């Protein structure tokens, strides 16, 4: 073991994480957002140590609670709701009545960041937009996530989802096979990529605030995020006057790099430089054309191709799916598949933090909770409302908790069908009983 490996074994030991400081400790984020592009921004900041208060409509809450894969709920929560809603304090406030708005403003006064993803201008029309909030808290960093931005021809009421951004940006036009239909990436890539861009700008704005003493507004359109991510597409269009063609699974910058079919699945073969191409040619016994690589891969398993690449000096990696990832020893050792013990739901494994910080690591402390689960803690504890005040607001339906429906309510109902409160039963040998 060299010195770095020795260092890394200690510095990144998952067991040491709870005892280490958090990078964003003391940063409070107020989230008024639904679905992904907004909640995920706050989640990314929460992983790094920010305190996140998620405001939802009392009753049904964030409509993402009801987006359930094949209609499947686990302990009355959708597995599609969890990944972008960890480490949050859930508060149910109706922002339609004036008292609800005032509660929101008081929370914003005590926050460093607001993240919202309502249609452009909605918050302002409700009287809780950036212009109002900055009067009460000039240090506030306000992130407005939207499809098309807060101003401009498309800003006026035009709704957007992830795939709108994939479509209008040009991303889909360059994804897929020549002569076939453009391909929508099979995940909410515009939402998650946009969420990350948003978190980055918030961090930059918080850094700037150390000097300027002031917050600011961030207007981020998810279509524009994907435009930024299309590498050489724009220079190519500008210089040639042509559209970049779909190239299927080949990376045309590094022929014959690409994804190939093999005996038991698919594998990526990569030759980034001359040395790797020569190594590939040696193995193929001739020119490294795509056809030769395809024939080579087809006769071997994923593991055999990867082994051959490691012996020869080019690169390869299996095309992995969720099952491979869930059972990966590597991803679990890195906390990328994070083994969480949640106080309400028990054991639940999640995607952990991406950047691994040696001194102030990110972490998952708990997973999503029912609507209004932390009302007392936040409205009583942080805002100092008395029990009577809170009760009065509840009677007026300004403040509230979950509706008695799947997706919104706590686990443990008798009529819950599959997993119930007995806890998860993962396939394939079950999880290890170690928690970070």
């Amino acid at each position, binding site marked *: 073991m060299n010195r770095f490996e020795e260092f890394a074994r200690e510095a990144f030991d998952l067991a040491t994480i709870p005892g280490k400081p958090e990078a964003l400790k003391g940063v409070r984020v107020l989230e008024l957002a639904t679905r992904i592009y907004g909640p995920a921004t706050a989640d990314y900041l929460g992983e790094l140590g920010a305190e996140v208060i998620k405001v939802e409509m009392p009753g049904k809450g964030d409509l993402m609670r009801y987006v359930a894969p094949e209609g499947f709920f686990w302990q009355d929560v959708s597995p599609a709701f969890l990944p972008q809603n960890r480490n949050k304090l859930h508060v149910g406030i109706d922002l339609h009545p004036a008292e609800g708005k005032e509660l929101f403003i008081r929370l914003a006064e005590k926050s460093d960041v607001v993240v919202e993803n309502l249609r452009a201008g909605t918050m302002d029309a409700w009287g809780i937009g950036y212009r109002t909030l900055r009067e009460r808290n000039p240090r506030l960093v306000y992130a407005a996530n939207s499809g098309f931005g807060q101003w401009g021809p498309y800003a006026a009421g035009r709704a957007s989802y992830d795939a709108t951004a994939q479509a209008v940006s040009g991303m889909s036009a360059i994804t897929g096979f020549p002569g076939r239909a*453009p391909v929508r990436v099979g995940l909410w890539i515009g939402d998650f990529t946009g969420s990350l861009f948003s978190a980055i700008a918030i961090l930059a704005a918080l850094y700037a605030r150390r000097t300027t003493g002031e917050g600011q507004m961030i207007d981020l359109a998810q279509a524009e995020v994907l435009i930024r991510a299309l590498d050489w597409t724009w220079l190519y269009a500008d210089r040639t006057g042509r559209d970049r063609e779909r190239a299927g699974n080949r990376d045309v910058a590094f022929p014959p790099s690409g994804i190939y079919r093999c005996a038991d699945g698919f594998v990526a073969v990569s030759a980034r430089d001359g040395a790797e191409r020569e190594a590939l040619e040696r193995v193929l016994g001739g020119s490294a054309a795509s056809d030769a690589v395809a024939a080579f891969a087809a006769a071997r398993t994923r593991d055999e191709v990867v082994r051959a690449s490691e012996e020869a000096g080019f690169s390869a990696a299996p095309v992995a799916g969720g099952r491979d990832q869930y059972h990966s020893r590597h991803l679990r050792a890195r906390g990328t598949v994070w083994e969480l013990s949640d106080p309400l739901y028990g054991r639940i494994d999640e995607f952990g933090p991406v950047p691994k910080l040696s001194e102030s690591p990110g972490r998952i402390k708990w997973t999503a909770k029912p609507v209004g689960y932390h009302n007392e803690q936040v409205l009583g504890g942080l805002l100092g409302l008395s029990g009577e005040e809170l009760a009065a607001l509840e009677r007026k339906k300004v403040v509230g908790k979950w509706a008695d429906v799947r997706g919104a309510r706590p686990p443990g109902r008798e009529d819950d069908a599959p997993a119930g409160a007995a806890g998860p039963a993962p396939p394939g040998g079950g999880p290890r009983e170690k928690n970070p």
Partner: protein
Amino acid sequence: MTDFAAWAREATDPARAPGKPEALPGVRVVEYAPGHPGGMVAASVLAEFGAEVVKVEPPGGDPARGYAPEGIVVAGTGLPFLAEARNRRFVTLSVERPEGRDIFRRLAGVSDVVVTTEPERAMEAAGIGYLALRGAVPGIVYLSLSTYGAFGPDAARPVRDADVLCQALSGVPYVTGDPEGEGPDPETEVPTKTGNWHGWFAQGLWGACGVLAALNFRAETGRGQFVDVSGAEALMKFVDYNITWMHTAGRERQRTGVYDPAVFPYTYIRCKDGHTFIAAYNDDAFESLAHIIGRPGLAQDPRFRTGPDRTKAENEKALHAILEEWSTARTADTILREIEDYTSKKSGPGAAVVTGRVNRPLETLAEENWRLRGCFTRVAAPPYGELLLAAPPWKMSGTPPRVKSACRPPGADNEAVYSGLLGLAPPELASLSDRRVI
């Protein structure tokens, strides 16, 4: 334009960025990412926010300059490098040579952040790895980008990091494309990668995110740290509910092509002039869509009445075909107009019928909206001519990001950096140059 939109434009229009302060002034970054666009993305993001980035290239130029799709090269540099090389100073340095390593350590010594994409094992062997640098510069934030990450059972795998490797491991291709037997051509019914380098982008972006969090921590505590980002994990993070669905249901997400396991319709449909996106997946929105396409009865059809009905595989197919009967007689713009005419009179969930043309790049470039919002910028960059670059997407009122300069030739800033920053005398520079250290 509403009062708010007018105010927002005034406050955040990128055209007004010059003259405003930047977010990261005084933060200096050394980028050592030979042949690696992902490392360039990380450094670009920091540079767009005002960090001063010094890009270290091997003498003769970065291998990434040679990446040239369709063989297109401008003054010795390919388009991918030209697209990402912005707001930097370009120096050359051979870290193969002891003198070069010494200069690298001196550069790091006057910097806040190091961005590298070389395996940490190689950096350590060269004496410029994290442990060596933090000894000399205790507050250094050191970002390492790789395929598998810097620790863990697979960390030692000998790969040259590449976008296609990160994509493959991420699970993105696994759920993208037509399922077998569902498409027009078995050759294309396969896991499909994104056309752009989304793996490298995600890797660089998460890297920048980690660095910013680490800078925040350093501002509070004075302590630097090692930031480890795996490109595979960076993109993996975007794959929706892969892990939670496996854990709770033992189910793995599959490719579903134009269909979607959780929401429908949420799909691309053919239209007269190409393809367009259409979504109307909550019950109210679907009822709106049924009216828009002139078949109001569909909302009561037992196959399509509720979300769970609509997401049954056979019902998704039937509904997709019904939608294309309507859409193939219309252009994408007509579809947008018809939908907006209807939804502008609605509010709440019933208004959530959403569409957008699947633009080819030239169509995107031709849309006034992006031009007006400053999404693209033209920068004079001799000897490469004028370059059309995608601008930073954030519109910010206080410290907006901006593109200040574009690509320069290898070593163009050697003198400014080595003399100006490190104080090397001209004879020293000349001697280093003669010996091909720089």
